[in-house]
């Protein structure tokens, strides 16, 4: 694969409509799977108080921060209203042979 792509996990490590955490190079990422088997990746920490989003609840394409219920659309990183107002950074993803790759950095 071209440079910058990282093998993050097996796609079956993530349940449908769910999220898991992943660390690489000291950086926390959150990996998402939708009900219709699409995969997304964002920064792993909430932009509000640096809490791990992988402990939060996924509803459709929204991830809710576990601490204060700040909401983000994980398909594009958009903050969906207070208390969060800073968008999440997103990363490209690709599925190959049952594994999820992300383009970090």
């Amino acid at each position, binding site marked *: 694969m071209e440079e910058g792509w990282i093998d993050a996990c097996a796609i079956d490590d993530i349940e449908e409509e769910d999220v898991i955490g992943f660390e690489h190079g000291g950086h926390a990422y959150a990996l998402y799977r939708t009900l219709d088997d699409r995969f997304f990746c964002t920064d792993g920490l909430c932009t509000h108080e640096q809490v791990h989003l992988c402990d939060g609840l996924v509803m459709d394409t929204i991830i809710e921060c576990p601490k204060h219920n700040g909401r983000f659309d994980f398909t594009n990183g958009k903050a969906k209203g207070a208390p*969060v107002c800073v968008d999440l950074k997103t990363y490209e993803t690709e599925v190959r042979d049952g594994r999820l790759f992300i383009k970090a950095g």
Partner: protein
Amino acid sequence: MARPAMIIVGSGEAGGCAAVALREAGWEGPITLYGEERHGPYERPPLSKELLTEKEPPKPRPSAEAGRFDELGISHRPNSRVIDIDPAGKEISLHSGQTAHYEKLLLATGARARLMSVPGSEYALTLRSFEDAWALRHLFGAGGHAVIIGGGFIGLELAASAIKLGGRVTLLENQERLLSRAVPAELAQRLHEEHVCRGVRFHFGASVSRVERRAVILENGERIAGDVVICGIGAEPETALARKAGLRAQNGIVTDDRLCTSNPAIYACGDCAASVHPQFSDQPMRFESWQIAREQGALAGRNMAGANERQSIVPWFWSQQYDLHLQIAGLPDLGKSTVVRPLSDDAVLQFYIDGGGRLVGAAALGQLSDVARDMRIAQMLIARKATPDPAVLAATERRLKTLLAA
């Protein structure tokens, strides 16, 4: 005649959310937010935790709304005390002598720390504002021995912060257990054990007879000396302004389910308000909670702009002590039976079911990663007035999320 204006008294979370919601709901006229503090709306939950323990000299953390005031044309007046309301003339008076006319008025005056009525109570520090936290930070930073009066959330969170900074803590509680008003006994017991493990010394059934600068004297004559005395025995709603204006107030400024007071042009929300939550009860209830302050603030703003919406908020509250997160949703007190769901070796979730099988409350204690998701689902089920099968609630192999699809 000036343009009709919306006035908000109190610039905490509730006031800030109300101002933004008013504008977003389409109100185009002036919005003015008067606050007694010198800061705009800021987050109070960190005051008992991170602001005391983090290395960086702390600053108030502005709420998300505060950053939007300029863009939305919201005028915030700090250091401004409103001393009078004239409901007939629809006018407020400020301590500076100025007056201002309102179309609609929102009272988001918050609550203040309750004080003890014993000699020397002025020696005990309280925590409510950023400045209070600043003062405590300097005393805690020096280590030493903190004597904390009150085993409620503030007292326990401060105990955890003092221990984290290497201090010693003695906590005095006049009841026989911690958090007796707000938290189910099993969870309070688990928190108690954690504090004991971390070195906090407790005196239960402790009745304070007087306070000195560096000591507390109990009714039984015992003298507990420390380097700082802190009092965390609850908060009282700021209702003086409302009472003076003839508004109905009991434990809080009384409102209907649309947050309107006994005067149709005046609303109240947040810590100062006792409002009707129609999905739970027709009796007004008052909550001291970050989430309620924010959600009620937004609802009050919308209703002042003409929305006429009833509140359907599920109360949600959290406390963090050491690595333990306590979360409570709904109204556990309304429950007639309890269903326990173990979340991990050291995390538990309790559901509270009323006589009709409806889920009315939930509480969980453990690591944030263990409790957060299922508590959020519980909160949604409570909002839907769900009557979930207790067997499913208790079965850890069944995902709670499946109940949302039902």
